[in-house]
C-alpha cells in the first residue's frame, strides 16, 4: 500500500483532544452551516441528519463512536465534513477544522497493539507529529458503518 501511494494529502481536524486526518480525495465538501435534525433512533453514534441541498445525510458522531468523551461534536452548532466513497456518503461532525497537510505515505504507521478506542477499525493508522498523534481515518469504512458500530455506547 505504502509503495503505491507516495503522498497522503490529509484534511486534519479535531475531535475532543484528538487530531484526525482524512484523505482529501474522499471529501466532497466541508459544510459549516447545515442545520442538523435529530433522528428518532437509538443509535449512540448517530448525531442526526443534515439536509445537504436536498440530500439527507446521516451525521456520524465520530467522537462518540470512538469513545472519546471530551467531544462536543454533534451536539451543538458544528462543522461537518462530507465524506464520499463509491456509493456512500456520510457527514462527520467535528469540533474544529484545522488544515490540509501533505504527509509521505511511509509515515503512516499501524496502530500500536495496545491502542484502544471503540470501533477503531475505522482508523487506517496514525502519523506521529511533533505536536502529537494524528489519527488517519479509513474513508471507506467510515462511510460503510453498520448498525452495530453506530449503536455502541461510550
Amino acid at each position, binding site marked *: 500500500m505504502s509503495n503505491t501511494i507516495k503522498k497522503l494529502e490529509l484534511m486534519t481536524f479535531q475531535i475532543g483532544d484528538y487530531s484526525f486526518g482524512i484523505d482529501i480525495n474522499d471529501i466532497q465538501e466541508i459544510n459549516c452551516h447545515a442545520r442538523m435534525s435529530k433522528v*428518532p433512533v437509538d443509535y449512540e453514534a448517530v448525531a442526526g441528519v443534515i439536509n445537504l441541498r436536498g440530500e439527507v445525510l446521516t451525521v456520524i458522531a465520530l467522537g462518540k463512536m470512538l469513545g472519546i468523551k471530551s467531544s462536543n461534536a454533534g451536539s451543538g452548532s458544528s462543522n461537518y465534513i462530507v465524506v464520499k466513497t463509491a456509493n456512500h456518503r456520510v457527514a462527520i461532525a467535528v469540533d474544529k477544522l484545522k488544515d490540509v497537510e501533505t504527509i509521505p505515505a511511509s509515515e503512516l504507521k499501524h496502530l500500536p497493539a495496545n491502542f484502544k478506542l471503540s470501533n477503531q477499525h475505522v482508523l487506517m493508522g496514525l502519523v506521529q507529529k511533533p505536536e502529537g498523534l494524528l489519527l488517519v481515518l479509513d474513508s471507506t469504512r467510515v462511510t460503510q*458503518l453498520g448498525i452495530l458500530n453506530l449503536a455502541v455506547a461510550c
Partner: protein
Amino acid sequence: MSNTSNLADDPELVAEFTMEAMAGLTQVDQSLLALEQGPDDEAVNEVFRAVHSVKGSAGFLGFESVQNLAHEFETILDRVRHHTLKLNSEGIDVMLKVNDSLKSLVEAPASHLDLESLIKSLKDWEAKQNHPIPEDSPAVVAQASDVEMRIEESSNQIDASIVQLADGLEINDNVNLEKKSVPEVIEAIRNAFSVETAAAPVSVPATLEVAKQSVKVADAKPLPAAVNKAVPEITAPAKSSLAVPALNAATTTSTSASPTASPVANPKASAHDSTIRVPVTVLEELVTLAGELVLSRNQLLRMIDSSKLRSFTAIGSRIDQVTTSMQDAIMSARMQQVSILFNRFPRLVRDLNQKLDKRCRLLIEGGDVELDKTIIEALGDPLTHLLRNSLDHGIESPEKRVKARKPAEGTLQLKAFHEGGKVRIIIEDDGAGVNRERVVQKAIERGLVPADAAHRMSDREIVNLIFKPGFSTAEVVSDVSGRGVGMDVVRTNIERIGGTVDVESDAGRGSRVHITLPLTLAIIPSWIVQQDDFQFAIPEAAVIEFISLTPSDISKRLETVNDSEMIRWRNGLLPLIRLRECLPTSCRVIDRRQRINKIVVIETGIFQFGLAVDQVCDPEHVVVKPIGNHLGQCGYLEGVAVLGDGNVAFILGMQGIAERARLGVKVESVPDESVKIDVKRNESQAAVILRRRNGNLAAIPRMVLQRIERIDPTLIQKSTNKLIMPYRGEQLQVFELDPGLLRRVRIQRLDHCYVAVFTIREVEFGLLVPEIIDIRDISTAVSMNESVRRAVCGTVLVDDVLVELLDLYAFADEKLREPVVIQEQKEIPIAPSGRHSIESQSIEVGKVNVDWSQFTILLAEDTPFFRNQVQKFLEQSGFNVRISDDGQQAWQFLSDESNKVDLLLTDIEMPIIDGFELALKVRSSPRLQDLPIVAITSLHTEAAQRRGKDVGIDEWQIKLDRDKLTNAIQRQLLSGKRISVNYFSEAT
C-alpha cells in the same frame, strides 16, 4: 420454454438488455454512416460485434424476433467482414433500416414488425451483390453517366417548372386564373422532384446540385407566400418539398459542402432525434436540485417579505413561477408509458392459454398513459399476478363457456387511463366471477370474519375479502396460481406505491379489478404529525381518518385488556398504539405516558390501528428522500421528507410501527420470550401449509419438496408396515405425518388427497397430506423449540396463527429408523445426515476416508433459525463450523489471517454486507481467492444465481435441503487443488 419466458419476465434483466442493446445499435448506426464514407474494416467489425452480442442476449432472453433479425443481419455482415460482399450505399440503406427495426424490436420485443419483408430486402440486396461488378467496369461508368444525365434532366425540369410556376402565379395574381393551370404547375413540380428523389440515393453530388437549384427557387422567394395565397391546400406539398432541399443546401453549402446531407427529409429520423437517453441518476439529481431550489426560493421569499424590499417582490415571484414549472418539467421527465409494462402481457396470456387449455384474448387500451418509472417497475408483479388469476380462476374452459352461452373465447381487458389526477388501471374479464358463497364460507372457516358479521356484509365487502391475508379458495395447486403469492401480496405491493385496489364482480358475468395509482412516487401527499421533538410524515394513502378525543371521551372509549389498549371506533375495537412508546427512550422529551388526544386511524394491507400522536399538523406534498442505510435498518423509518421550510420529517413505516408495538402478536401464542427471535422483515420463504391430525397447522418449506401430487387415496397400499403408492412407474414410500391419517382419509371418503414428494439421499419419499391449507410465503422468524418432537424444528407465526415448521429430513430419518421398516437406504450414504453420522464421523468418498473435522466451514447467516439449523447438521456431519451473524462479521473473520477457513457457506440476503458482496470481497483478496464459496439461500431466481456466478460463488444451494448441501460442501472441499493432500488418509 417456460424458462426463457420467465427470464423475459424479469424486468431488470430486460431493462439491462434493452439498455445495452440500444447502446450497441446506436453505435451501429454511427459505424454504418462512417462506412458510407468509405470502406473501413474496423467499422465493419464494430457493427458485426454489436449485432452479434444483441443476437446472443436476445436469444438468451427468448426474444425470438430480435434474435432472428439479428441473425440474418449478422450473416450478411460476416460476408462483408470477410470481403466476399462489398458494401454500397444501397446496402447501407438496407442495413440502417434493419438496424432501426432491431432497435424498435429491442425497445418493445412484442411489437409486430414486418420482419419477413425486411429480411427479404436484406437478402435481395445480398443476391444483387453476389455478382459484384468490378469497380472500373464500363457498366459503372455507364451508370454514372446515366445518373448525370438524369440529374441534368431533372435540373432542367426544375428550371422549367419554376418558370411554369412563376407563370402560373402571375396568372393567379391576375385573378384570371384558368382552373387547369394550377394543377398542371403542381404536377410539373412533382415530376421534377420525383426525379430528384429517385436520383438522390445514387449520387450525393447530384442531389447537391439539385438542392442548389432549389436554393435558387428559394432565393427567387416570394414564392411560398404567393403560392399560399393562391391555392394553399394544393401547393402545400410542393412547398414543403421545395423548402426542405433549400434548407439542406443552405446548411451544407455554408459548412463547405459536406456531402452527407440527404435532401430527402426523413420524418422518422427527426422523431428519433427529439429524444435522448439520460441516465436515471442524472434525472434523480435534477429532481433533487429542483427540490433544493424550491427550498432556497422559499427562504428568498421569506427574506424579501421580512426586509420589505418591495422592488424585489416582482423578481421573487418570477423566480417562484420558474422554479415551480421547472420542478414540474423535471418530474415529467421521469414518466414512462405503461406500454412498457403492458407489452409483455400478450405473451403471458398466450402462454397461459396453452398451459391452462383455455381460450382468451387480451385487449390492451391506454398503453400511452404515463406513470413514474418507479411505479411502473413496482407494478409488474401485481399486474402479472392479477392477470394470471383472471385467466386461471376467472375465465372458464371453452366448453363451460359455451354451456353458459358465452363466446368460447374469453376476453381479458387491460385498460389504463387518467382520472382525477390519478391513473387508473382496470383488469376486466368476462369469466365466472367471484363465487360469493364460497368466499364467505372460506372466510368464516379461516376465521377472517366472524360468521354473524359475514352475513351482514355488502357484496362489495365480500368480494374484497379475497385481499385478506391468508385467504385462498384455490383447491388445486397448479403451477400457475397458488404459487405462494396471494392477493394480499398484490394489495400490499400496490399500497406500497401509494395505490389502492378494489374488486367488483358479477357472478357468472366476470370480474373487474380497479387499481388506482398516483402519478409519481417522488412526491407523496402526506400528513405531518408531531410527536415529542420530531415531525413525522404519514402517507395519506394509509390514513383513514383522524379522531380527536377530549379527556371525557377517553374514559368512555378507551378499553384496556391485558395491557393492550383499544379504542371504540365505528362499532368495533381498534388497537391503539401510542407513538411515544415506539420511540427509543432517549428520544422522548419526557419519559411519561403520552396523553391521548389525537388519533390517526391507519390502515395498511395487513394492519388497522389507531396511532396516538401529540399533534396533527398540516397535509403536505412531501419530496421523499432515501434515509441512510444505517438508519433504514431501524425498521420504522422508511424515508425522510424535506418539508417546505427546510426541516426534515421522517416517514413512518406502518409495518415497522406495528411490529414495534407487537401488534397482532397474540400474547399466548408466543411460546417463550427468550427464544423469540427478532423479526427480519424482508426474508421469507414459500411454504406449504397443512393441517395435522390434532388440528395444528404445520408448514413445509416449499423448496424442500420436489412436487405435490394430487392423488386418489385408494392408490396408496399397505405392505407390511409400509405405505406404497405407484409413482411414475415406480414405488414410492409414503409416510403419514400422524398415525392413522390414511385411515381417516378413507373413512371420510375423500376423493382426493395430496402427496408431497421429497428426496432424501437421492431416494424419493412421499408425505401424505389430506388437505393443503395454503401455499404462501412465511416469515423466517422461527422460534426454535427443542423440546418438541424432532419432526417439528420450530414454530412460526402466520397471520397470528401458530404454525409448526416441519423438518422432513428429521421426520423421515426417524421413520426410517423404526424397527419394522427395512433400512434399504443404507447403500447410498453419499452424504451423512441426521443421526447416522454422529457415530461415524468419517465417511467413505471414493477410496479415501475423509475426516471432515479437519475442515473448518465459516457460516455467514443472519437469520438465527437457519444459522442454528445449518450449524447443527453441519456439525452432525462432522465439520468444524464457525458462525458469523452477517457478511461483515464473516469478512472480518476471514480477513484475520490467523483464522483457517476451508469453505465459506453464506446466505445471500444479509444486512450490511450481503452474500454477493462478501463473495466479491473474498474473490478479490489474493489470499482467499481460491476459497470455495457455497451460497445457501431462499433466493432461488435465475438472475440471482447468475449474479452469484459472476461474483464467484461456486455452488448455489437451497436452505434446509441438507442432503444436497452436505454433498455440495463435500464436493467443493474435495474438488481439485483447493486442499492439500494431507487431509486424506488411505483407507485401511
